[in-house]
């Protein structure tokens, strides 16, 4: 019985999403659960920032050590594609914010549209990144070329991983909105899913100038 439940939860990874607690199973009142989930998510975001903090520290150290390499490397990156991606991510952050606002007013339709737009933006971002990567590879540049490209591929790669995780999270939330799982009394998941997406956006806002505009 429990095994079946476990297998089902594997098939629906949304069950795995930590902060989503089935109300009927909780020992605690919904208000506590909501504020706790938010607090937990903020703590988790702090760990994410520290994760990228390691990369930023490495960036600072090696940039001080190899200033010329970083200038040349930065020049070789496509500022136009980078800028487009920045605009796209900032825009998608805004649409997520609207979705979080909308669910509190019970506008499910608007929530769905906004999350769809966010997902489309994320997809465009990923496609752009794919072209950037393949162009670099075609010129024989890879993660091992020099320290600048090590930083470039490591940090944008780890960021890309977060974009994909964010897309999965938002995708699951989107699916659940169609199942009518959320309302203005139950929107914790959308709110913290949105927080996660803002983090993805925030990290890129730092990565873009550091890598492309240096």
């Amino acid at each position: 019985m429990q095994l079946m439940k476990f297998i089902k939860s594997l098939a629906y990874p949304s069950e795995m999403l930590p902060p989503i607690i089935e109300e009927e199973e909780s020992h605690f009142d919904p208000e506590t659960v909501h504020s706790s989930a938010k607090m937990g998510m903020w703590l988790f975001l702090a760990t994410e920032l520290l994760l990228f903090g390691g990369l930023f520290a490495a960036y600072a150290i090696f940039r001080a050590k190899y200033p010329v390499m970083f200038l040349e490397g930065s020049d070789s990156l496509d500022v136009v594609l980078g800028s487009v991606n920045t605009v796209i991510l900032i825009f998608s952050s805004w649409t997520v914010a609207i979705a979080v606002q909308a669910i509190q007013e019970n506008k499910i339709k608007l929530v769905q549209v906004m999350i769809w737009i966010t997902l489309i933006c994320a997809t465009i971002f990923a496609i752009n990144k794919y072209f950037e990567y393949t162009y670099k590879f075609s010129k024989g540049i890879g993660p091992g070329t020099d320290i600048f490209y090590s930083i470039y591929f490591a940090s944008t790669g780890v960021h890309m991983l977060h974009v994909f995780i964010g897309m999965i999270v938002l995708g699951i939330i989107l699916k659940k909105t169609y199942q009518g799982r959320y309302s203005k009394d139950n929107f914790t998941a959308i709110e913290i899913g949105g927080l996660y997406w803002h983090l993805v956006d925030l990290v890129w806002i730092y990565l873009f100038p550091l890598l492309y505009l240096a």
Partner: protein
Amino acid sequence: MTDHHDFDKNYLENGKGFKSWFFSVDHKRLGVMYLWAIGVFFVLAAIASFLIRFEHLSPGQTIVSAQTYNVLFTLHGAVMVFLFIVPGVAASFGNFLIPLMIGARDVIFPKLNLYSFWVYCAGSIILLGSLLAPVDTGWTFYTPYSIDTGTNVIMVTFGVFVLGFSSILTGINFIVTMHKLRAPGLTWDRLPLFCWAAYATSLLQVLATPVVGITLLLLIGERYFGLGFFDPAKGGDPVLFQHFFWFYSHPAVYIMILPAMGIISEVLPVFSRKPIFGYKAIAYSSLAIALISFLVWGHHMFTSGQSKLINIIFSVITFAVAVPTAIKVFNWLWTMYKGSIELSTAMLYSLAFIFLFTIGGLTGLFLGALAADVHLHDTYFVVAHMHYVMIGGTVFGLFSAIHFWYPKMWGKMFDEFKAKIAFVLIFIGFNVVFFPQFILGTQGMPRRYFNYSPEFAFLHQLSTYGTWILGVGFILMLYVLCRPTGPASANPYNSLSLEWQMPSPPPTLNFKEIPTVNDSTYAYGTKIEQEA
């Protein structure tokens, strides 16, 4: 869900069989499962260490080859650190006790708690899976050796990366639980000190683990994609790896020791029938240690080639972290002053903790002093120092907890007399193993040496004989714990903290009614002398 049923049945009776445990979100069952898991890993790593010591019975090859020796000390270190002692007391007793101590029915995210355990299991399996091509880097994975060696570094580091998630999620769970679920009246300055220690530990887990996460991810990238951060051949910097690594691994030392300090702070008042002395000093020094521990990582690297100025700064801050530790030791001692002391097994382990941890702390002063560290770094002195803190501290704390909460956890009593014999053997054995290593280190015996000069033979042999005493002690302790003598009452020690105010073992949902707390957890003794 919360029907009458769950308060009548205790948590051990609530379902039988593997599935009722492995899929349980009950914090007590999770605590017990963590305890079993860390127990198994402790035995595994201990066996590795017995082989290591046996190898040193004579210079040159005794029983294993040099490569096997290198694998053994890596296995011992990696399993002890990442599978046993980092999750260790916090995950096992933290899970079991925190909700009971703060008057909650569970941790705030019970499901997340179960997932953390599964992630821990997955990480352990990945890490141990590397045994197919066992790693020989040492548990510190220093580059460029770890980039260069032909062994399975990717698998081990990925295992540690996964374990990091378990650590972070457990930390978040505990922090939020303690913020949101304290019973009415249980203010922060009435919170049991074990909870304070667990809180400081959780902070460290949340703030330090991501950094080792990215470090190990980059190390995997170096091996897999050819990134160049830590490889001098590519313009990278191996010292940077050490900075990143110790930025996590020094706070990790306090992740290991703080929960044990919390246990001591619980056990001493009960068996002295005195309030803990200097509650605030102990609580705040836990936080102080947690914060300062983020700023001392460089003392692992005094001879690594970092700049002189940085070494001096790290040396100053290292001494700053010694002070709150000293404060704790004296506060524990003074808790016993004018008390009514009962030498139970748990109390003996706690007293041994104070003694051994003090030695561990004092020998840290040698290593913090710059000029002395130049001589002592990477010798057996460091090995002995670290084991005095980790075994003499954490493991003795854990053993104290296992005996102290045994009645609560299992609802049974154990044979105190035999347990005390086991304690004596463990205490003597431990000192015979590790005290000679201080002298070995001072004489210049480097660590991680398969072979050694004959002049060191006597002390090495002494140390090896000690492991046999220690081993007998461990086995006797296990034997005693596996043979309970009779049912336990709800509160066999007349303790005042919340977890003893319920039946042993606790009901599945802990509290039928959430209790209201009116006084300090440590309100022992008559109030006549209490100051305003």
